[in-house]
């Protein structure tokens, strides 16, 4: 295909009659902090699962770092780090044992795996309970451990499925610092998140998937320009357009998102029993 870090061609996935992802053509350039957005059930998780080898595409092609994922799964996986939806932790290991294990699974030698484990535990502030099993960790601690495991081998691309879900502000700050550091070292990050403020703050590029189809892709500025160029006129006198741009202010990602997926805030709609 091309020199993209991640690229897909006509990526499609069906579950029986349901088309979860349809004809998706993604391009993520190396070094980008890429946000993959979409409403619930749009196909975000299905796409990220296909990109990381957790799910087979029905049709289409995936290239990661120039390698065909189906033909070279091991070579691809060696160069990527993944925090999947369920975090994929082994609950009955301690944090140190888990990181050590993951490091060796990615081919690190014993000493390097142990050294990086210690560093990561310190960085993620997880070294305080060396004997606690992962199953006894809080949700935030598990997220930090999952991220530590995903980066222990120094991946070129990091795939994160909802990395900030259920994470408190302190842990979230640690995660963001780590991700920024990786970007500054030339890594590519591909994340999905429902928290648009975080995506707006972190990501340079985004793609939006809606009902299984890719409806927008590009830098935030590109998306803004595209949306503003197509800003709909009010449909009736006195009725505001959906999420209007404020005078002189840029559209926020949330406003862009709502315009692109055609969603509206249902604040004015009534529920029969609430009045």
């Amino acid at each position: 295909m091309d020199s993209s870090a991640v690229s897909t061609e006509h990526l499609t996935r069906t579950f029986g009659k349901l088309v979860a992802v349809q004809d998706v053509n993604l391009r993520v350039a190396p070094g980008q902090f890429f946000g993959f957005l979409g409403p619930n059930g749009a196909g975000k998780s299905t796409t990220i699962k296909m990109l990381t080898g957790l799910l087979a595409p029905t049709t289409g092609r995936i290239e990661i770092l120039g390698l065909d994922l189906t033909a070279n799964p091991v070579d691809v996986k060696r160069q990527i780090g993944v925090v999947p939806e369920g975090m994929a932790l082994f609950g009955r290991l301690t944090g140190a044992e888990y990181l050590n294990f993951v490091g060796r699974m990615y081919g690190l030698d014993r000493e390097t795996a142990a050294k990086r484990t210690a560093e990561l535990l310190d960085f993620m502030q997880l070294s305080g309970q060396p004997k606690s099993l992962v199953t006894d960790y809080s949700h935030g601690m598990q997220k930090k451990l999952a991220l530590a495991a995903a980066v222990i081998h120094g991946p070129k691309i990091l795939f994160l499925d909802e990395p900030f879900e259920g994470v408190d502000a302190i842990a979230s700050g640690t995660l963001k610092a780590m991700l920024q550091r990786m970007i500054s070292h030339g890594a590519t990050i591909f994340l999905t998140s429902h928290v648009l403020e975080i995506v707006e703050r972190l990501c340079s590029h985004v793609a939006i998937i809606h009902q299984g189809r890719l409806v927008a892709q590009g830098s935030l500025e590109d998306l803004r320009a595209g949306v503003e160029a197509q800003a709909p006129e009010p449909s009736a006198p006195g009725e505001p357009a959906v999420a209007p741009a404020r005078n002189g202010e840029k559209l926020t990602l949330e406003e862009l998102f709502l315009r692109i997926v055609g969603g509206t805030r249902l604040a004015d709609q009534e529920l029969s029993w609430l009045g």
Partner: protein
Amino acid sequence: MTDEHSNEAPALASAQFAAIARVRWQIFINSLRSIRGRMEAVSRGLVGLWFGVGGLGGGAALGFAAAFFIGHGHVEWLAFLLWPIFLFWQLFPIIATALTETFDSSNLLRFPLSYRSFFIVRLVYGSLDPATAMGSLWLLGLFVGITVAKPLLFLATAAVLVLFGAMNLLLARTIFAWLERWLAQRRTREIMGLIFFLIIVGVQFIGPITARFEHHSHAQAAQYGEALLPVERVLPPGLAAASIAQFSRGNFTYGLAPLLLLGVYAVSFFWLFHVRVLAQFRGENLGESAAAKPASRARKLPVRAGWEIPFVSGPTAAIFQKELTYLTRSGPMLFTLLMPIVILLIFRVTPGKNGVNTFMNVAPNFAFPVGAAYALLMLTNLIYNNFGADASGVQFWFVSPARLREVVRAKNLVHMTILAAEMVLVWIAVDLMFRTPSLLYTIATIAAVLFAAPINFAIGNLLSIYSPKKIDFGTFGRQRAASATAFSALLVQAGIFGIVALAFVVGVHLHNLWITTGVLLVLAVFAFVGYAAVLRHIDTLALTRRESLIFELSKA
């Protein structure tokens, strides 16, 4: 009983009960959408039928026995009938809980259920189990038998048996509720698992111990019986029997006293159950999540490098270490692995009838093969559900750069290592308990294991992918493999043991055990070729099945 919403309309409570019943029914109906769910339903139906037959048959037998005792003037002997009912009612649910999934009623607490409703749900739903059904049927049989033999006892028997049944129900629920409390936390759960295992092992020794007592004189046995009698009389079955006995003699006052005491038991259990349910209703927090400690208070330990295993790649060594670490953190699982030794011990201490010793004592040469076979059998749960303990961690195998065949081979290597270690232990145990296994039998047994293990691994690897089930080594309950897996494993083991037994029979018959060894080694070559073929295709199979594998093992 505290009612925190005493003004709740009874209509709301009835609607809630109906909604709960309906949702349970819907869950059942939805479970039938999958083949696996339908198979589970059929197996439950068969088990239910078996319990039904047991309940009705047992009830009839107890009825006849009760009528016989009453007819022959031995009303006190009813205690002999009430004790088994009592023990079954209390012990069976505990054992069954270790094997089945139960409805977690604490989920209902987010709804506006009054305490009274919650209490009733806990009592009623928990009571819809085979023990209650069979216990009730048995008491009904007893009631019919007694009243047929002596119609005048109709009312008194009804009162005593209803109270006895209610007491059993409450005690069973109380035990369950408190067990649930202890099982809610990992550490207490593991302790409970060990206690449960020790009880199971202890039960195995009842046979040998009673067999030993058979050799004691009747006078001695009577002495023991008399010493225990005062204790027996104040326990619920003894009280129920005493009450009916007194009523049958027309001593109403003396009949009421044990009945009242039985009532005291029932009320006490009711109160203990209430204490537990109320704590749950008020939202007790049994969470175990570790809170992050401030760095200043953190007690760091140096991170040790992983294992290095000669001739084995780094990832394989890492998987090997991970699997063994998992096993060593599971008390119940470790004790399961000790079972072959326990079984040998049971054979050793069981005296035979008429001076003839048990099979193992008569043919000690077979102690080692039987012990080795048992060791393999004990590993079935692990071998046939390779990914079960990984739970949602199974995703890691698909995102990591390791090939699935490498993962599965490492897991098989761990199981083979455990099997080898078990065989060494069994050999030593046989040497100490029976006699040193002969070289010929030792070699033939090793050949048998070399034949049996690859077949088990090959089929186990396939079933691990096609019929996975999440298990938690830290829990003593719900550790069963999927029904389809258990059934297939049973068939495979039956076939393998049949072939091995045949090979031994031929060898023993021809007085040449080298024939057995030779045949088994040839079969082992074929078994290994089959294993290698399965392993070659495991990546393709696992990738085809990855979605269902991940889905099944990531279930909450």
